[in-house]
């Protein structure tokens, strides 16, 4: 399954290898990119005569897609860093598409800087690896990954993926970017971070328990904090961005469980964990892109992302609303859609982990099960809020009330394709999971795959119950409709407790909907005003950095002669050093 191409270059041979793991990512990137570009044709239309450089936008879009594909196949650390950088830069230009807006530009610059911090960690990690292995080729890294380079690479890739506390760029960049770009970024670009982590793991034949617990812990925290902050958001795309953090956490949980399975020599747990995590990569790409596209459609029609100003769109935009509903049910992880399948596999991995007779495993896994359940119910709260406030009820503002018709077909078709994918994976998981064994084979010995057979049977039962559910629903709904035939069914105003002059301002708002649940966190920290990780972790570091750097202001005088002097001094030192060492 490997094919390689040798390019002799300045930095030695660059191997381009497509192994099962790369193939899986290439599949996702290709499908999602095509759908994203089709969608962008409709989305970009209002910008066409606004003096925007559409040409350069699409140029960077193509560069982004190509660089993402290259990231998954390049097997040389230096070349990898180059394509990685290319990916960050091209996406930066995509984010600042509406660069005339101040907040877009500042979000873009925040993103650019964060990505370079990520590269810093990656460079450090790769240098440590290559200094022990003696080569920059990925194949030579196998067995050389100890805890410190792993943590460095994990942080580097984790910044891209958006693990808490490295997530602060995500809720800024996603709302700023145009929707097809947010869809691509959230759906596939942040997954390249996950790809990096998985690639690093593939060099570790037997991960140590410490790093496995580390990955699991950071993932659980990401999932919980992502969804908690999502509940407090009023900006539809920011809400979705926080959900990306949550889902990255769920993916990480799958990977962490897989690592623990390997660490404890229990292949079944490893297979279940990795397959759940890897399936969630695909699932999240599907439903997150669907949701971003639908949010983009809403923005396209209403020109606002503030959900407090929306409402009642189900009447004017029925197709978009149905598609957003599909995405919401899928992302909440409810059967019979695809989100449930990957979470179910992760649950099964956690449950089987209980068979390892070890008290720390017991407590960690039971708490993880509870955390995953909590994440699911919190996501339900968040998406009933988002869907209910954006699409249901009556319009809360002029902008929403003036919407007359749905978006064009060219925007709806990619969303419909994604929505049908959520159904296909959710209703026929047994076939998908069988295919999933191919990328999982990178981590787990293929001989033990026979242990998955009973779980394929279970998934077949899940598939049947999904189909059964739909049929039973049809039956009950049919019966109810039959009973209503020939009966008096009439429309009336919503019951207002005897009050008749109900208007749109009396509706429940998004803030009031979320308030009851969020009020419970008030004694600990405020969820409504900004990110605690940003305030207490990222900002102090930045302030400290600024202080240190301020000490060196005198170096930068703006005087050209002085800069030439610096160059000269450096050259003299370099000459002395080389002469001295010879």
């Amino acid at each position, binding site marked *: 399954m490997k094919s390689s191409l040798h390019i002799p270059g300045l930095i030695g041979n660059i191997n381009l290898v497509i192994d099962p793991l790369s193939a899986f990512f290439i599949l996702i990137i290709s499908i999602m990119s095509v759908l994203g570009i089709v969608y962008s044709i409709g989305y970009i239309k209002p910008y066409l005569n606004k003096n925007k450089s559409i040409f350069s936008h699409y140029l960077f879009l193509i560069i982004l897609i190509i660089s993402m594909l290259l990231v998954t196949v390049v097997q040389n650390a230096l070349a990898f860093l180059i394509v990685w950088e290319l990916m960050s830069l091209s996406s930066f230009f995509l984010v600042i598409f509406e660069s005339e807006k101040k907040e877009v530009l500042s979000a873009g610059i925040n993103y650019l800087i964060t990505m370079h911090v990520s590269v810093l960690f990656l460079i450090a990690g790769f240098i440590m690896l290559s200094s022990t292995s003696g080569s920059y080729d990925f194949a030579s890294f196998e067995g050389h990954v100890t805890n410190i380079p792993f943590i460095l690479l994990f942080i580097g890739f984790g910044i891209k993926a958006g693990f808490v506390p490295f997530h602060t760029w995500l809720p800024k960049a996603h709302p700023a970017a145009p929707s097809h770009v947010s869809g691509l970024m959230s759906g596939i670009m942040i997954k390249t971070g996950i790809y990096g982590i998985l690639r690093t793991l593939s060099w570790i034949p037997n991960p140590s328990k410490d790093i496995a617990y580390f990955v699991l812990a950071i993932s659980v925290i990401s999932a919980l904090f992502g969804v908690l902050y999502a509940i407090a958001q009023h900006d539809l795309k920011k809400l979705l961005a926080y959900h990306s953090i949550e889902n990255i956490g769920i993916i990480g949980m799958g990977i962490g469980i897989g690592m623990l399975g390997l660490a404890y020599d229990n292949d079944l747990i490893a297979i279940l964990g990795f397959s759940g995590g890897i399936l969630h990569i695909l699932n999240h790409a599907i439903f997150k892109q669907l949701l971003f596209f639908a949010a983009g459609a809403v923005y396209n029609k209403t020109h606002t992302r503030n959900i407090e100003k929306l409402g009642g769109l189900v009447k004017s935009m029925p197709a978009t609303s149905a598609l957003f509903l599909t995405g919401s049910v899928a992302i909440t992880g409810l059967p019979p859609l695809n989100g449930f399948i990957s979470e179910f596999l992760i649950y099964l991995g956690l449950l089987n982990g209980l068979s390892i007779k070890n008290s720390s495993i017991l407590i960690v896994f039971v708490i993880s099960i509870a955390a995953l359940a909590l994440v699911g119910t919190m996501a339900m709260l968040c998406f009933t809020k988002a869907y209910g406030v954006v699409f249901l009820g009556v319009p809360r503002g002029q902008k929403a009330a003036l919407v007359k018709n749905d978006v064009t077909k060219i925007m709806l078709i990619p969303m419909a394709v994604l929505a049908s994918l959520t159904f296909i994976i959710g209703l026929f998981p047994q076939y998908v999971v069988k295919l999933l064994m191919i990328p999982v084979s990178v981590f787990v010995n293929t001989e033990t795959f026979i242990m998955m057979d009973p779980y394929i049977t279970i998934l077949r039962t899940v598939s049947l119950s999904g189909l059964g559910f739909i049929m039973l629903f049809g039956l009950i709904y049919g019966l109810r409709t039959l009973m209503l035939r020939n009966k008096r*069914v009439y429309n009336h*105003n919503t019951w207002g407790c005897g009050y008749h002059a109900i208007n749109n301002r009396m509706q429940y708002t998004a803030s009031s909907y979320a308030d009851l649940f969020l009020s419970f966190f008030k004694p600990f920290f405020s969820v409504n005003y900004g990110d605690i990780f940003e305030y207490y972790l990222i900002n102090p570091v930045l302030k400290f950095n600024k202080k240190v750097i301020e000490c060196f202001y005198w170096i930068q005088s703006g005087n050209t002669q002085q800069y030439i002097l610096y160059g000269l001094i450096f050259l003299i030192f370099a000459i002395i050093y080389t002469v001295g060492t010879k």
Partner: protein
Amino acid sequence: MLEFVLMIVLLFLFPFLFVGIINRTKAFWGGRQGASIFQPLYDFIKLFKKGEVISSTTSFIFNIAPSVTFTSIIFAGLLVPLINQKSFLSFEGDFILFAYILALGKFFSLISAMDTGSSFEGMGASREAGFSTLVEPAFFITIASIAALSGNYSFQSLFLIFNNTGELGILIILLSVLVIFMMILVEGCRVPVDDPNTHLELTMIHEVMVLDNSGPDLALINYGSAMKMVIFSALIANMLHPAVFLLIPIIIGTLESTVARFRFSRLFEFIFLMCSVSLVVLALTMIALYENPVGLIK
């Protein structure tokens, strides 16, 4: 075969009796004669024959949501052990599907409430979503602890710990029963969490969500919430004794006649108590598994 028929009767007819018994118990404590215990069935039939008034604000969501919720509850009923610890469908991890399919029903009932554009129903949805968020983790901790103890990862695990119960096993079972019983009170919207008989919209949780539903839809909603209570009771009944099926409605009825409902600000305490009990179950499981290296279960 008889068992199969009994299971169907239990799942589909007993919910009416369940509510009937609760109401009769409340009547007894109130010194009233009370309605027949079949009254909920008559109410269901009457409602199902009626027409509907539908709010002009609503969309297709409001139309399908009661049916989706009801289907989800029936499906949950198929997964739960009803009689002799047997269920229609059982497999490893069935309780996960059980919880998630109930969540699907709840998802639709929440957005259906938001669909009416009423502030009261939005309030009910907010409360229902907020309070039920913390219920599921407690349920999962309890079942997962018991599963760890018995080495079986389905609902069947609830009964396997019976095979070899020490003192600790009995304690674990009793505390798990407590967690599930508290879950019935929260999910079934009974006192002290919610009062099904309250007449003030501002104090309602579940009732206020369905203010605008009428006719067959309301019938399905009422039937569904009764069925939900039977399903959770089935978990307790199969852990303890089948007679519990009759005991639980009597206990609920007595509770409703003797205890006042909690203030909203104290409801989180109630739900946290439930989470704490489930954590005690986890702690006891650890003691059972690791202080006694042979384990309670072979």
